[in-house]
């Protein structure tokens, strides 16, 4: 029983860090929240590995730590490197801070409840509709939706990359939940793809900052119909 409470705490931690990661405009703070968020997610995989006796999950744990917690933020060309070269603060988003916070919190809680409720419609197998897979699937879809929300409402290039990472995390949780027996090569392939796409996007963002003097993606409007 204690174990289940631990898992629930992890879920709450994941969602809370996610909310702060999205609304905070100071890049460095936001990236630290992202690191915490990813670390908590990887702890969920450890919980799975330990409680459901599935050693494959340790691979997920290690790859998440390696990619999301170490490489993407700290490697040369990564998040910290990029924000050092560019501004310290995100471009003003479409919604003001208060409204944004309220909206995201609502989306996080509402999304969690909603996906929990309609699980029968989205669970591909009968087992997936039972706990703990049910909560895990609900959290995965919630993270994915929040990532999509971030992508649609923020106009900052670095935040866009973070939004893509968040969506990626949501998909990772779904993968862990639904396809625990995935081959190692597939896990590593997805990991490589994600890291490469993040680094290419960050590279483009730095070049855009050099040429346009801003990370505002709305300013990318020289090409018109």
């Amino acid at each position, binding site marked *: 029983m204690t174990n289940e409470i631990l898992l629930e705490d992890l879920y709450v931690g994941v969602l809370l860090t996610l909310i702060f990661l999205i609304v905070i405009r100071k890049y460095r703070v936001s990236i630290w929240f992202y690191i915490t968020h990813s670390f908590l997610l990887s702890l969920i995989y450890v919980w799975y590995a330990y409680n459901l006796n599935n050693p494959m999950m340790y691979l997920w744990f290690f790859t998440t730590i390696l990619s999301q917690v170490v490489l993407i933020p700290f490697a040369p060309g990564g998040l910290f490197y990029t924000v050092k070269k560019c501004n310290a603060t995100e471009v003003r988003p479409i919604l003001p801070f208060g409204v944004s916070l309220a909206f995201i919190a609502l989306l996080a809680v509402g999304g969690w409840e909603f996906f929990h409720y309609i699980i*029968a*419609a*989205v*669970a*591909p*197998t009968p087992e*997936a509709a039972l706990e703990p897979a049910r909560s895990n699937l609900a959290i995965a879809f919630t993270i*994915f939706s929040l990532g*999509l929300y971030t*992508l649609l409402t923020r106009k900052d*290039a670095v935040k*866009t990359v973070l939004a*893509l990472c968040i*969506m*990626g995390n949501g*998909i990772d949780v*779904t*993968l862990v939940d*639904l*396809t625990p027996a*995935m*081959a190692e090569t*597939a896990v590593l*392939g*997805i990991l*490589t*793809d994600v890291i*490469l*796409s993040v680094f*290419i*996007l960050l590279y*483009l*963002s730095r*070049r*855009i900052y050099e*040429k*346009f003097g801003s990370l505002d*993606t709305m300013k*990318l409007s*020289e*090409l018109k*119909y």
Partner: protein
Amino acid sequence: MKEIASILPFMLFLFPASASLIVALFGRKKGFLREGISLLGVVLSLVFSCYFCNRTLFNGSETGKFTAFYQNIFIDGFGSLMALLVNVILLLVLLYSFSYMKTLIAEGKILNKNLRFYYTLISAFNATMMLTFIANHLILFFIAIEASTLATAQLVGFFRDKHSLEAAYKYMVLIIVGIAFSLMGCVLIYSASVPHLTGHNAVLLSEIGRIADIIPKNVALLAVAFFIIGFSAKGGLIPFHPWLPDAHSEAPVPVSALLSGLIIKIGVYAFARTVTVFSRHYPVIILYVAAVACISMLLGILLAYAQNDLKRLLAASSISQISYIFTGLCLGSYVGIYGGIFHLVNHSMLKSLLFLTAGSLMFAAKTRSIRDMGGLYKKMPITSVCFFVGGLGIAGMPLFSGFHSKFAIFAALGQQQLWWALAVSVLTGVLTLSVFAWAGSRIFWGRPADSETMEQIKEVPFAMWAPMAIVAGIVLVIGLYPNLIYPILDSASQSILTIAEGGSL
């Protein structure tokens, strides 16, 4: 149908991948280690794709499918056809690049050292395309599609100026977001099929047909919705189209030809492997895709009317033409799939041809603006003939290859009694014809804005017009004798249907 266990399909991927590695490591100077190796990679890959076409498409009762690595790798008729198409076009584009890139260096637009990067990425792109066509494992399939996006993003932003960076950024973000959705779809399908298929088979593309109507309906429709979002983003359907005109207009000309000729076809290939299989069981998918494709078709060609930039005009027309292919494939019937594949082949050739002619016009006239060009018919006769072959072919005029493929799609739409879609498709065909007639008459017979510059224009060098003439020749031959290509298209359509009907690999 025979199943042949062989690792030969893997060679399709291995040669270009090695070529890419060698060029990246040693391709500092011009010569064999750069241009030569990249050409060799494509040629070897082409030889193997010819071999597979022969074995999987023409062999009658001996026709087979190749599988390797516990069926994680496979190639059937459709895959072979795509591999052949990609390699032929890539070879021509590569030949065209050799002289085109030389002029870019002479003009000071790029440096000689940039070319190592260019040829590395072209070979890497070829490798990822081949991996897409031989992948049978759902996740590997996704990885290959995403990798092809990553390989081309830097090619789109090759010039590193404001415009090309903007185009590359839009291209990356739109497609990566779309493709993320399709991964979600892959995961759902995979996990839903675990209880119904034994062990490893659950994750194979070739087994989707068996479980399409067994897995829960909600999950199937949700996964298909994710697939449609993902693959239509890659294919450039509305509302994901904004990357297309930008990327096409800002990339170097050979890359534009690749984007329109090949990259958007990956979206179509993935669509045919997944959504087509489900659309046979859920008619709502047909209705939805046909509606989106019709909107896309019409808006794409209307967008083309608003363009003055020749490359943007061609890109906008690609949005419209790719919608025809999606329409054909979503129907799930033999005629629809046949028309879709035929149009896919036609569009690849015609659009590559048109982009190469656009490149030649830009090379000679030093402008992309249609209104600034004029009276070029006498100056550039070969280019003008090639342009009209491309334009009339795309518009689907009789005697040109586009006519046969579009007619098959119209027939398939009529068969399913989707009259509104048929009406929109025919209307779009007429509009396409008028757009190309306008652009062609303006460029080749119109009065130029600056007649002095236009006076000095000459036909492009042999190395640039020869690839165009070859493609134009193929297009004309197929238009006059469609029977030549029919057996290949028939086998390719059958191989999609076999999987869709749940036939074993």
